[in-house]
């Protein structure tokens, strides 16, 4: 591949194929293995098999010394796959990557660290991985330790380090290697604000000597640090150019996705219905004990739903109901007046208010969707959505949708459970 002057990284039509079906991956691997044994080159990827998809497709760009490229996109857009391909951790299925000079990658925080070994020893080990001798590493050792701000902990096993400390050490070693091209994943999101600024400042110092590819969800980092940015969307290059413009496009995509999210919610809550001839002035909302509308609640608190409406006639069999779904559309539960011992009734043309009380809500943290439904026996009079309810966490760990009250007891053979 021909590279322009000062170009350190050139990526041409880079593509990576993944499969959701492990069998398909193995089938392709078997073909490659067979062809390799026969001395043939890999088979071109003409057709995709069942379950296969392009994690990255036809991505091209180049990077010169002194340039920093930001990579932005949603989760699953192919950002980390791109970095792994650039770092040589994976082979592309199509296209090529050409790197001039030494490349270093910070993709996984713990990558290359021997967790049971001291930070000190790990500095030399990582140096060896990057082709540095122990003598060369000894020269930069103090600089690394100073920059990492780890202090005496440098002699402790890295398994005892916090993620911030690990990031600081990884970053310090990496920049001390003075690579020509540095690939940085979200790693700079770990650690305290001050150290992140220190890292960015160090990268700025290295700007003239190296090229950077920075994946980040922090738009301010992309804007402040990068000369150019690319937006990846579903594995494809959606935009390449000014960081400001890239961020605008990304934000737009986020908005479109939010609209899609709204559409998804509407799909879960449909059908919406209102027989205005029979029911009017319908109001319903989640509220607290004081009757103030709420959209958030903590697990274990008491939740209320206040509903009021006026009917044109006295329904024979008035039923009120509140079905609840998870954000993904899983039907969680329903609250209905059908379970009420005494029947519900209203006076025609008179506004009536109902209050649903749900003590000690056992929903796990998440977003919950719900409808308020009024029926007269099997006939729907009204079906409208409540505001989205977000249940906040009170514990660190939870499983599934609800947490039923429970406790554990322990006993030995000699004891009896009472």
């Amino acid at each position, binding site marked *: 591949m021909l590279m322009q002057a000062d*170009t350190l990284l050139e990526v041409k039509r880079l593509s990576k194929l993944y499969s959701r079906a492990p069998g398909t991956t193995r089938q392709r691997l078997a073909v490659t*293995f067979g062809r390799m044994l026969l001395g043939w080159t890999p088979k071109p990827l003409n057709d995709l098999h069942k379950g296969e998809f392009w994690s990255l497709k036809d991505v091209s760009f180049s990077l010169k010394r002194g340039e920093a490229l930001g990579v932005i996109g949603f989760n699953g857009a192919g950002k980390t796959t791109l970095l792994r391909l650039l770092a040589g*951790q994976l082979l*592309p299925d199509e*296209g090529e990557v050409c*790197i*001039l000079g030494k490349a270093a990658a910070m993709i996984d925080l713990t990558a290359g660290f021997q967790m049971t070994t001291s930070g000190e020893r790990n500095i030399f080990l990582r140096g060896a991985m990057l082709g540095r001798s122990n003598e060369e590493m000894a020269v930069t050792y103090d600089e690394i330790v100073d920059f990492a701000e780890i202090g005496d902990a440098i002699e402790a096993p890295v398994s005892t380090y916090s993620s911030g400390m690990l990031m600081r050490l990884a970053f310090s070693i990496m920049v001390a290697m003075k690579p020509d091209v540095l690939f940085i994943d979200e790693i700079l999101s770990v650690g305290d604000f001050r150290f992140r600024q220190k890292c960015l400042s160090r990268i700025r110092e290295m700007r003239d000597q190296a090229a950077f590819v920075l994946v980040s969800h922090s738009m301010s980092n992309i804007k402040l640090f990068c000369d150019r940015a690319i937006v990846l969307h579903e594995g494809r290059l959606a935009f390449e150019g000014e960081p400001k413009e890239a961020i605008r496009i990304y934000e737009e995509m986020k908005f479109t996705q939010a609209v899609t999210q709204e559409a998804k919610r509407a799909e879960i809550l449909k059908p919406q219905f209102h027989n205005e001839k029979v029911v009017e002035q319908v109001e319903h909302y989640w509220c607290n004990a004081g009757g103030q509308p709420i959209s958030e609640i903590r697990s274990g608190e008491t939740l209320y739903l206040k509903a009021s409406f006026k009917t044109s006639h006295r329904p024979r069999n008035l039923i009120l109901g509140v079905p609840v779904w998870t954000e993904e559309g899983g039907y969680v539960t329903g609250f209905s007046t059908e379970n009420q011992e005494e029947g519900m009734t209203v006076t025609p043309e008179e506004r009536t208010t109902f209050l649903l009380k749900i003590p000690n809500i056992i929903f796990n943290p998440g977003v919950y969707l719900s409808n308020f439904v009024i029926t007269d026996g099997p006939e729907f009079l009204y079906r409208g959505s409540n505001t989205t309810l977000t249940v906040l966490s009170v514990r660190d760990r939870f499983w599934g949708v609800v947490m039923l009250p429970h406790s554990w007891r322990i006993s030995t053979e000699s004891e009896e459970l009472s």
Partner: protein
Amino acid sequence: MLNDEKQHRILRPDSRMTEGSIEAMRNLIGEIWTFRSHIKIVFKEQFRASYSGTGLGIFWSYVLPLVPLTVYWALSKLRVFPNFEGVDGATFLTFGVTLWFLLAGCVQMPIQVVQSRNKEAMKTAFPLSASIVSGFAQLLFDTLVRCVLVSVVVATTQSWPTWQGLMLPVALFPALLLFIGVGLLLGILNVIYNDVSRVVTILLQYGIFVSGVIFPLYDTGLLSTLNLFNPFAVFIDACRAIVFHGAIENFSAYLAMTGLALIMFILACRAFFIMEYRIRGIT
């Protein structure tokens, strides 16, 4: 302008495919050399992990490799196994079983390492070749422990080896190449077909009884003919012969197997070098 004055790395779908066998071996050795310090640490970690949490600690690392040998030794003491080819039964058995575990380990180790470390290899840049070498270090340790027991058996039974026994490492070398090569190929195949490791385990379980490890096969008709093509039998027989009789009796079979070993090792190294990148992350 062509930027070819400095290190120039190109990654393509056919990367490594064009490398010849010698280049592949050179690269593998380079990888192992680069990661030599890591190999040492990984071996130490695995060694410690094998007994961590146990009451007797490191004692297990010395005892467990000896268990199968002591079983056969005990059986020979009960006269289940007589003397063979002028060599005491206990010596014959412990020597053969030690070689068997070493050679079978060369096949199984790459399969196990590729299976367990494949995903990690993608993330850590610690190549599978280096992981396999650290696995072999454990195998070597087990073998050395067994060798100590074999020496004790030799001394107690007074089945003294000949001075040509010093040539044992040389005689054993092609066997190691062959079975490491087989292990590397099967390690890749096992990623493609998960059944491979299970089939290998079954074959090796039976193999010990039909490879002249526990008793010689010269008077077992068809089996003795088949064993001319069984590399385990050929190499174990040759090693035993050189140690206790001073010469390899079936030298032509040994020579043929040595040739096969060289070819297999070279081919396997190239195949492993090419496929290592392609199997990463597939479990």
